[in-house]
């Protein structure tokens, strides 16, 4: 059996006519349903001008594109900026210094800090009490 036979069968049968009792009051029911709708169904709002309808999606897309383009770049995605950070530069410099020199540098720094404190104390000692306040 092929599709043609099925087609033949389908053509030979038809949906039975809907019984009249099922259709009784049908239009009145539709009218009732229509009555529940706002009375201004037909007088629909005039359509927006074409350029407004065109601009709306274009505007939304533009805002999205701008928002994506201008969003803050995550730190890991800007290595150049990170490389310019003073701490990174300092670490790079330190990495190039031999460990012994690095220790010396640290000691120098400590000595420098001590010197500065001593200097400050000496200055304070030379000052009159009124000047300190």
């Amino acid at each position: 059996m092929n599709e043609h036979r099925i087609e033949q069968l389908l053509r030979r049968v038809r949906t039975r006519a809907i019984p009249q009792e099922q259709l009784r009051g049908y239009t009145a029911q539709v009218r009732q349903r229509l009555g529940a709708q706002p009375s201004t169904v037909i007088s629909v709002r005039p359509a927006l001008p074409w350029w407004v309808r065109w601009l709306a999606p274009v505007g939304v897309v533009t805002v999205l594109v701008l928002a994506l383009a201008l969003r803050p770049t995550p730190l890991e995605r800007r290595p150049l900026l990170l490389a310019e950070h003073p701490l990174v530069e300092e670490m790079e410099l330190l990495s190039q210094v031999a460990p012994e020199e690095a220790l010396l540098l640290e000691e120098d720094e400590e000595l420098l800090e001590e010197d500065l404190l001593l200097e400050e104390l000496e200055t304070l000692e030379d000052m009159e009490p009124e000047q300190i306040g």
Partner: protein
Amino acid sequence: MSPDAALVTQAQAGSQAAYCELVERYKAKAMSIALGLLGNIEEAKDASQEAFVKAYRALARFHAQARFSTWLYRIIVNECQSVLRARQRAGRWLWRPTAAASQDEADDFLELIPSEAPSSREIASTAEVQHELQRAIHTLSPRQRAVVTLRYLEGLSVEDVAEALACAPGTVKAQLARALRHLRAQFDGLVEEYLS
């Protein structure tokens, strides 16, 4: 100008009476299509009436170049497919006549009669074929069911079915071919007996 055009124009101008005249003209066809797709007379009545209401609301967007009938059929098919989707969500995808269903309800469901004067043999086998056809058509996808209902059970041309379903005639033919293949698998044997 088509016979419906004047009524459509009046309805678009706000005449509910003119629209009700259109409802009167198409109510039987609307019910028939909905019944073919849904298989239940109460659901078919509700869906077809809802389709008429939706068509009334959308009447301002209807173009005079189109035919009111096919435009309305499209709205009916869409409404029925919404009902089928709701039914699917509710877990009742396949409508199956149950023993508990009344005889009247079973008769409502796509009752088929031969379109020409039947022989006694045809009458005897009609009930069996009806039952098989009901079952088989309702195993089709909603789209294929719509195509089969409009093309064979309602007798629309391929072009009219395409217009009603907003697709190309080629798509309708492809859907019909797939549906027929599916039905053949369901019908093997029985059709031979019926058509012999």
